[in-house]
C-alpha cells in the first residue's frame, strides 16, 4: 500500500500531471466563481480534452475542477450575497454581513484558508479511510439517513432567532415548496398546477438566488451607498485579520473538516446538509452566539472548512459503490464513466493507484486553488467599495443569467421572481430565510428516507444503534446550550453583572408585529390549505408528506398568532412597499427579456440604469453595457449556453461579426 501511495505521489508531481491539473483548477474556479454554473458546466468545458487522454492525467484534470468549485463559489456568497452553489449557502449568512461591514477581504481570506485546511484534512482522512470505509457506508441505512436529515432540520431552531414559530412556519413552507413535483414513493405529481415547469420541482439554485440574493440587491439599491457600509476600514488589513481568525479558530476548522469528511462519505445526503450542520455546530458551541447572522467570522469558517472536506469524503461512496454523495460527485462519476473506469471494489484493489492519484490530486488542487483565490481576495474585495448603483445592473444580469442556467426555461425566471417576493417579505419582517431554505433542501430526503426506512425496517427503524446515536446527538444539541445557560446564569447572579445584549431589540424581535407579518401569515395559511386541497386525491404514500408539511405550516401560523395574542404584540412598522415595487420592476425586466431577448435587454437595461439611476456619463454607461454584452456573448460562445431570444436579439445578434 505504501508503495502505491508513493508511486501515486510521484505521478501527481510530474510536470504533465500538474499542467493538466492546473487546466482543471482554472476551469473549476471559473465555473465556481460565476454563479449558476457549476460542476456540470465545468465538465462540458473539460470534455473535449478528456477524450483520448491518459486516464491518470484526465483524472488529475477532473479532480482539479471538482476540488476547487466549493472554493471559488465563496466569492459570490461573500461579495454579493449570492449562494453560488449548494455548498456555499450557509456561508452567505455571515459572509455577506461581513462584506457589508467592510470586512470582505477578511471574510474571503478566512474562507479560503479554511477551505484549504478543510480540503487537505479531508484528503488525509480519506487516504486511510477509503480502505476500511465499506462497512461504514453499508452501516448507514435509510433510517440513519432519515435521522441525519432530522438533525439538519433541527438547525431551524438554531437559525430562527427569537421567534421559534416563525422559523418553523418558514421551514414548513420550505418543505411544501420542496415537495412540488413527483412523489418519490408513487411517482404521482403534486402541487404542480399543471405547469410543465413544476413537474421537476423548483431548482435549488433558483430558490437560493430568489430567497437570498434578490432581497439583498433590492435593499442595497434602495439604501444607496456601497455594499461596504463603513468606508474607512483599511481593506489591506483584511488579509492578516483573516489568517489570524483561522489560526484562532483552528479547532473549529479541524472539527468541521472532520464532520464534513464523515458526512461526505454517506451517499445521498452529503452536499445538502453538511454546511447547515456545521454552521449549527459553530453556533451551538460558541460562547457568545449573538453575532451569528450579523457577521461572525466563525459562521464563514465552519461551513467553508466543511464543504471542501465533504467533497473529499464524497469520493468514498462514488469510488467504492458508484453512488455519488453530492452533485459534484455525480459529475465526477460521469467523468469516470467517460474514461471507461467503472467504480467498484476494484478501486481499492487493482486500481488502488488510480484512487491514490485521485486523492493526492484532490489535496494538491485544494492547496493550489485556495492559494489562487487568496491572491485574488484582496483586489476583488475592492468591489464592495464601488457605489452599489453602478454594480446593481451587473449583479441583476448575473442573477438572471445564473437562474436561467438551472433548466433553461422562462419558468426559471418566473420562479425566481416569485421566490424573490417571498424573500423580500421575509426580510422586511425578519422571518428566517435560512429556515425556509433548509426546509426546501431537506424535504426530498426527509420524505424519501422516512418512507424507505419504514418499508425496510418498520418501527424497528428507530431502534437501530446508528439511529440512537444520532438521536442522542440531536438531544445533546438541544439541551447542551440550555444547561450551559443555566450554569452561566448561576455564575452571573454571583457576580451580579447583567449583560443582557440589547434587550429592546430582543423584545421587538420576539413580539413585534406588523403589516408584512399579517400578510405572510395569511399567505402561508392559504398556501397550506391549498396544498391540502391539491393532494387530497392522491395515494396515501403520495400525500402523506405534503400533508404533514402543510400541517406544520398551519400549526406554526396558529402558534405565531396565539403567542402574539397571549404575550401582547407591539405594533411595528414594516415598510415593504418600495421593496415589493422593486421586485415588480424585476418582473417587468423578465417580461421585456422574454419579449426582446436576454442579451439586448441586458444591454439596454445596463445603459439606462447607468445613465438615469447611477447618473454616469454616456461613455461610462456605454463601456459598461459593452462589457456586459461581451461577458454574455463570450460565455455563450465558450460554453454554448443558450439565452432566451426575442424580437430584438433575432435582428441584432446576427449582425455582430465573429458570432
Amino acid at each position, binding site marked *: 500500500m505504501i508503495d502505491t501511495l508513493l508511486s501515486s505521489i510521484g505521478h501527481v508531481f510530474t510536470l504533465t500531471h500538474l499542467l493538466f491539473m492546473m487546466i482543471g483548477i482554472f476551469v473549476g474556479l471559473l465555473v465556481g466563481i460565476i454563479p449558476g454554473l457549476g460542476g456540470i458546466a465545468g465538465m*462540458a468545458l473539460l470534455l473535449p480534452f478528456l477524450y483520448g487522454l491518459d486516464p491518470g492525467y484526465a483524472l488529475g484534470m477532473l479532480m482539479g475542477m471538482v476540488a476547487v468549485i466549493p472554493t471559488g463559489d465563496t466569492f459570490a456568497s461573500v461579495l454579493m450575497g449570492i449562494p453560488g452553489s449548494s455548498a456555499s449557502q450557509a456561508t452567505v449568512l455571515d459572509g455577506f454581513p461581513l462584506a457589508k461591514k467592510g470586512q470582505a477581504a477578511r471574510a474571503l481570506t478566512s474562507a479560503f484558508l479554511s477551505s484549504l485546511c478543510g480540503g487537505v484534512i479531508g484528503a488525509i482522512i480519506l487516504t486511510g479511510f477509503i480502505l476500511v470505509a465499506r462497512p461504514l457506508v453499508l452501516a448507514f441505512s435509510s433510517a440513519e439517513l432519515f435521522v441525519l436529515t432530522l438533525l439538519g432540520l433541527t438547525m431551524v431552531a438554531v437559525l430562527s432567532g427569537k421567534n421559534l414559530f416563525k422559523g418553523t412556519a418558514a421551514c414548513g413552507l420550505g418543505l411544501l415548496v420542496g415537495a412540488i413535483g413527483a412523489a418519490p414513493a408513487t411517482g404521482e405529481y403534486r402541487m404542480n398546477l399543471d405547469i410543465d415547469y413544476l413537474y421537476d420541482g423548483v431548482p435549488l439554485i433558483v430558490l437560493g438566488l430568489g430567497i437570498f440574493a434578490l432581497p439583498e440587491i433590492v435593499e442595497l439599491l434602495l439604501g444607496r451607498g456601497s455594499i461596504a457600509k463603513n468606508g474607512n476600514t483599511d481593506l489591506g488589513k483584511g488579509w492578516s485579520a483573516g489568517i489570524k481568525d483561522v489560526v484562532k479558530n483552528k479547532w473549529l476548522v479541524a472539527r468541521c473538516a472532520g464532520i464534513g469528511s464523515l458526512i461526505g462519505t454517506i451517499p*445521498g445526503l452529503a452536499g445538502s446538509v453538511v454546511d447547515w450542520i456545521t454552521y449549527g455546530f459553530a453556533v451551538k458551541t460558541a460562547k457568545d452566539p449573538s453575532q451569528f447572522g450579523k457577521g461572525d467570522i466563525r459562521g464563514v469558517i465552519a461551513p467553508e472548512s466543511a464543504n471542501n472536506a465533504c467533497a473529499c469524503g464524497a469520493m468514498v461512496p462514488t469510488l467504492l459503490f458508484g453512488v455519488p454523495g453530492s452533485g459534484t460527485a455525480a459529475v465526477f462519476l460521469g467523468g469516470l464513466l467517460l474514461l471507461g473506469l467503472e467504480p467498484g471494489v476494484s478501486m481499492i484493489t487493482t486500481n488502488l493507484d488510480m484512487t491514490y492519484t485521485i486523492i493526492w490530486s484532490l489535496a494538491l488542487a485544494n492547496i493550489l486553488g485556495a492559494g489562487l483565490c487568496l491572491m485574488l481576495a484582496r483586489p476583488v474585495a475592492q468591489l464592495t467599495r464601488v457605489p452599489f448603483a453602478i454594480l446593481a445592473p451587473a449583479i441583476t444580469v448575473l442573477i438572471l443569467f445564473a437562474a436561467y442556467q438551472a433548466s433553461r426555461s422562462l419558468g426559471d425566471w418566473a420562479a425566481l421572481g416569485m421566490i424573490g417576493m417571498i424573500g423580500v417579505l421575509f426580510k422586511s419582517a425578519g422571518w428566517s430565510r435560512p429556515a425556509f431554505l433548509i426546509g426546501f433542501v431537506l424535504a426530498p430526503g426527509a420524505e424519501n428516507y422516512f418512507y424507505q426506512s419504514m418499508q425496510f425496517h418498520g418501527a424497528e427503524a428507530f431502534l437501530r444503534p446508528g439511529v440512537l446515536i444520532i438521536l442522542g446527538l440531536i438531544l445533546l444539541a438541544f439541551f447542551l446550550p440550555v444547561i450551559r445557560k443555566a450554569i452561566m446564569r448561576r455564575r452571573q447572579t454571583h457576580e451580579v453583572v447583567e449583560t443582557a445584549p440589547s434587550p429592546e431589540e430582543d423584545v421587538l424581535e420576539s413580539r413585534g408585529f406588523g403589516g408584512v407579518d399579517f400578510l405572510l401569515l395569511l399567505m402561508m395559511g392559504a398556501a397550506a390549505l391549498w396544498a391540502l386541497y391539491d393532494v387530497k386525491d392522491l395515494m396515501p404514500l403520495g400525500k402523506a408528506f405534503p400533508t404533514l408539511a402543510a400541517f406544520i405550516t398551519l400549526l406554526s401560523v396558529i402558534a405565531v398568532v396565539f403567542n402574539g395574542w397571549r404575550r401582547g404584540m407591539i405594533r411595528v412598522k414594516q415598510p415593504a412597499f418600495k421593496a415589493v415595487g422593486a421586485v415588480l420592476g424585476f418582473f417587468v425586466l423578465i417580461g421585456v427579456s422574454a419579449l426582446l431577448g436576454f442579451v439586448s435587454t441586458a444591454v439596454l437595461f445596463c445603459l439606462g440604469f447607468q445613465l438615469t439611476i447611477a447618473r454616469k456619463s454616456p461613455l461610462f454607461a456605454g463601456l459598461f453595457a459593452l462589457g456586459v454584452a461581451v461577458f454574455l456573448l463570450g460565455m455563450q460562445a465558450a460554453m454554448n449556453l443558450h439565452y432566451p431570444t426575442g424580437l430584438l436579439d433575432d435582428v441584432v445578434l446576427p449582425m455582430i461579426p465573429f458570432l
Partner: protein
Amino acid sequence: MSIIVSTPKRQTLKRHARTTALAFMLPVMGLMPLSSAVHAAAEVPDTLTWTVPFGVGGGTDVWARFMSNWVTKDLPGNPAVVIDNVPGGGSITGVNLFSKRAGDDGDEMVVTSASTQYPAMLRDRRVRYDYADWEPIFAAPTGGVVYASSSLGKDSASALEALASQEVKFAGQNPTGLEMPVLMAFDLLDFQVDPVFGMKSRGEGRLAFERGEVALDFQTTSAYKSNVTPLVDAGQAVPLFSLGVMDDEGHIERDPSFPDLPTFSELYLAQEGHSRDDEAYQIFHKFFASGYAMQKMLLVPKDVDPELLELYRQAARDLAKDPEFLKEAAEKVGPYGLMVGKAAATQLQEAMQLSEAEHEWVKNWLMERHNIRLQSR
C-alpha cells in the same frame, strides 16, 4: 451546453488523399464501378447536431459521445457532431423541444433512451413527441441480470423456489421506469416481491442489497460485472436469470455476456400453461424491447431525404461490423452489437405500440399491484 466533438484529423487527411487519388484515376479507369457511398446524390451536412435530453456525464450522454466519435468515420465528408444537452423532465423536455423544432434537412438528430420511450408508451401527459415521426438510424441494447441473496438459497434453483413462497423486498426507483419489465417479470414468475420505491439510481438499490435490506436485486450488465460479480464470488449473491437479448426477428436469446444464465423467457415458458401469446408476456416483451433491446437510439425526422437516411444507415451497418469499434465498445459501453436500419425500425414500431387493451392492462397492473394511478392522457 454543447461541445464540438472533433472528427479525427488524420482520418480526414487520409480520406482527402484518397479522393484526390480517385480524381486522378477516374479518367483512366473509365467505367469502373465505385462504391455507392461516394456516388450517392444525397449531400451529407458538414455538421450534425445531436440533441441529448440528459445532462453531461450521464449514461446516455456518455454513450452518445462515444458513438459520435465513431459513426461519422464511415460517412462521406466526416461531418462534425455537436452534442446539445437539453436535460429536464427525465428526458421529456429535450425531446419535446426536438420534436417541435427539428427540420428534415438530416442534420438534426435526437438521442433517446428507455426513459424517453416509456412515457410515450404510457401516454404521459407531458409527452408531445411521437416515435412515428422519426426513423431510427441505429439502436443499442443493454442487458441485465436479476440476482438474489444467498440467504434465500445456495444455488439458483433453491433461491427460485424460496422466492415463490417467501416474501422479499426489492429496492426500485419508480414503478414506471426502467425497472417496470423487471417488476413484471417477477410477477410472471410468481415471486412474492414487495417493492420499495424512491431509490435515486440502480446503484442505491444495490447498496440496499449489500446492506441486507433487500434480498432481490437487478443490475444492468456493466454495473453487474464490476459490482455484483465480487459478491457472487464471495458467496453473498446468486445470479438467477438474465433478461436476454433480442435478435433482428424479435426473439429473445441468451445474453452473450452471460451464456450460462437462463433468460427470463426460458424460465417463464418452461412453466406449465405458459405461452408466448399470454397477454402479460407480450406486454413484458414490448417494454423489454423498447427499454433494453433498443435502450438507446439515434433517430432522425422521417421526412429526411431517403437517400441520406440510407447513407446514415449504411455508415451504421459498416460500423456494426468494424472490429476496432466492437473492441472499444465492449470496453466502454458494453458488449453488445448495434441494431441497424429496417430491423430497428420494424422492432421499434412493434414495441412502441400498445393497444387500448394492453394500455388498460398496464394501468390496472400498476393500480392493483403497486397502488399507483397512471396519470395518462
